């Protein structure tokens, strides 16, 4: 047998407990799946369910808590559950935004990992029909003196700049912090903000039976296919060479994808659209069908591939970047294709919608998977994981503080601390001016970006103080929201909505789960009190090294609206001799 020909892998090996474990499924989860489909799955089906039911896609550990967040408001057009949140800002315009993490890939390959993180979140925003107008990020690194920190920091910052600058979106804000608990697990959270017309928002739900499902963008390779050491054994010693664990980003392709997508949306070609993120083809196709109460049938022979001999399993789980899936309006295929060809991108009809509510995947004329589409999403396991509340820390009095330094020394130490020092070195590597609307640049409380020709503008910020969350998750969660709120109001904006990125350790540990629960409750309480709904977000769990979790880091991305730039404020003193006030408690 020619071991390099991956097509020869049989679709029906016997599914051993090891194989199941390698796919990250617990025995009871696998049992649930077998009962659901009433037979033993094929290997492709096992891959599909492992992608759909993993923590990343299914939010199985956090869902019960995310549901407690306030997500509605007068302005909210679309809350959590789509590619990004959508909020009305008047005059028929909407702001579309979301935040997402790319922690692990950035630790392995900082430049590409951070870059593809930015690419992913930009796609989430323009998938909704919005043109990205700003990007932000929140970064956490290990001890500044740790040998890896310097290269990780340099690589991540260059990667964020490398992608965003080339794509052509101004990166206007963010935060950078250091702590030894991130030594083995850095955080890279990227946020994107876009503008759309309220009556031209695009959603993932497919509609209409028998419509073409179209694949767009870059070709599919064997990028980031998880799981299977089974597969490596099968593929021989060069498996690592064949299956890159880190994707290389192509911001150039993404820029073309943006222009092409917005152009075919304008041309009325699009019924539904979904970007291919994690477990690309699987998640996007299942979501489009499930949300639209339709079945989906794919023919993988039509999928544009970068490599020869890719198996169904690989195509379904590939995480190649800069790809989209769409349902095209009847009779619009040719027009859509012409637009994509003009931009030099791949375009292929790879399937159709059906009325069977089944997810059917064919390859070389053979059915590789045939699964109930709704259940794949809806019946994912959901856990109410046991948790222990974080014990409150004793309140310190002035006499408990022994480390006495002079005020001057203390000030010097504060200014010199990497957490507080100027981050100019970072944001000068981001093009924060492109598009010509950046009214307040990085370095202030919140960035301000003009909407069109003004006078309206958006304010945006990302905030969290992990050591507060560690000391008291509930108060820390509240504080992060409050800080975002204050940063927005400080530039004269009315805070309108929030996105979040919940970064924690292993939720199977009760004390970590206690942090998750505490922080979410705190965020919820603050958002409720401030009428500051959560419209999108992302959860990143299992951020641990050698058994120790990161500091609990629920990043809050806040967006505010300025009706008239004339009323906006910046932090610089404007003239000598003016009175200075302190406001608040």
């Amino acid at each position, binding site marked *: 047998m020619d071991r390099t020909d991956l097509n020869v892998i049989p679709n029906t090996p016997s599914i051993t407990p090891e194989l199941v474990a390698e796919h990250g499924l617990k025995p009871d989860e696998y049992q649930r799946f077998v009962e659901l489909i009433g037979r033993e799955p094929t290997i492709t089906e096992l891959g599909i369910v492992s992608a759909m039911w993993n923590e990343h896609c299914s939010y199985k550990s956090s869902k019960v808590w995310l549901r407690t967040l306030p997500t509605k408001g007068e302005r909210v057009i679309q809350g959590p559950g789509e590619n990004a949140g959508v909020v009305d800002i008047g005059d028929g315009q909407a702001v579309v935004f979301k935040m997402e993490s790319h922690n692990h890939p950035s630790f392995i390959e900082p430049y590409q990992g951070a870059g593809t993180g930015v690419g992913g979140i930009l796609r989430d925003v323009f998938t909704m029909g919005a043109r990205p107008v700003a990007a932000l990020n929140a970064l956490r690194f290990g001890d500044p003196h740790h040998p890896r920190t310097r290269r990780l920091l340099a690589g991540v910052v260059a990667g964020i700049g490398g992608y965003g600058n080339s794509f052509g979106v101004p990166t206007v804000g963010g935060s950078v912090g250091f702590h030894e608990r991130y030594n083995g697990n850095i955080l890279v959270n990227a946020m994107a903000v876009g503008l759309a017309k309220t009556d031209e928002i695009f959603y993932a739900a497919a509609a209409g039976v028998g419509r073409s499902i179209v694949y767009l963008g870059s070709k599919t390779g*064997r*990028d980031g296919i998880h799981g299977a050491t089974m597969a490596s054994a099968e593929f021989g010693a060069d498996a690592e060479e*064949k299956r*890159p664990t*880190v994707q*290389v980003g192509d911001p150039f392709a993404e820029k073309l994808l943006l222009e092409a997508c917005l152009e075919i949306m304008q041309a009325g070609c699009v019924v539904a659209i979904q970007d291919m993120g994690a477990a690309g083809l699987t998640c996007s196709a299942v979501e489009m069908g499930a949300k639209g109460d339709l079945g989906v049938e794919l023919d993988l022979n039509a999928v544009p591939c970068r*490599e020869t001999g890719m198996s169904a399993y690989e195509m379904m789980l590939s995480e190649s970047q800069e790809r989209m899936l769409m349902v095209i309006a009847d009779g619009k295929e040719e027009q859509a294709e012409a637009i994509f060809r003009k931009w030099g991108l791949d375009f292929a009809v790879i399937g159709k919608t059906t009325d069977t509510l089944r997810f059917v995947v064919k390859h070389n004329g053979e059915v590789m998977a045939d699964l109930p589409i709704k259940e794949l999403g809806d019946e994912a396991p959901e856990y109410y994981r046991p948790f222990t509340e974080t014990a409150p820390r004793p309140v310190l009095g002035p006499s408990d503080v022994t480390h006495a330094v002079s005020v001057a020394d203390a000030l010097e130490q504060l200014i010199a601390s990497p957490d507080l020092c100027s981050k100019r070195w970072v944001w000068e590597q981001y093009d924060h001016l492109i598009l010509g609307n950046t009214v307040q640049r990085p370095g202030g409380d919140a960035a301000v970006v003009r909407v069109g020709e003004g006078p309206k503008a958006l304010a945006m910020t990302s905030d969290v103080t992990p050591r507060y969350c560690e000391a008291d998750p509930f108060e820390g969660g509240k504080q992060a929201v409050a800080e975002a709120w204050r940063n927005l109001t400080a530039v004269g904006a009315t805070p309108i909505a929030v996105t979040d990125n919940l970064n924690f350790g292993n939720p199977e540990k009760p004390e970590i789960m206690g942090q998750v629960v505490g922080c979410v409750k705190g965020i919820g309480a603050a958002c409720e009190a401030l009428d500051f709904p959560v419209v999108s977000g992302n959860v990143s769990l299992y951020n641990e090294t050698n058994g120790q979790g990161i500091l609990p880091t629920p990043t809050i991305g806040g967006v505010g609206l300025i009706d008239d730039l004339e009323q906006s404020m910046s932090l610089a003193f404007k003239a000598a001799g003016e009175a200075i006030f302190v406001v608040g408690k």
Partner: protein
Amino acid sequence: MKARVIVTLKSAVLDPQGKAIEGALRSLGVAGVQSVRQGKVFDVELAGNDKAAAEGALKEACDKLLANTVIETYRVEFAE
């Protein structure tokens, strides 16, 4: 002693640069180009004459800095 280190992307890793160059060569009408992959080359001048030591040092340089072995492979060559 002169050495050359060649760092290339692993074969299954996407090479956006190579892809763009491939397209450009085609549209310039250069005949017969089927695929292009781009890599880096480092021409290194080393002290001494101990080839084995130099090779060791360069491998170390590659692992530590010149290549990210998650996505790249490298090769060390010596000028004859």
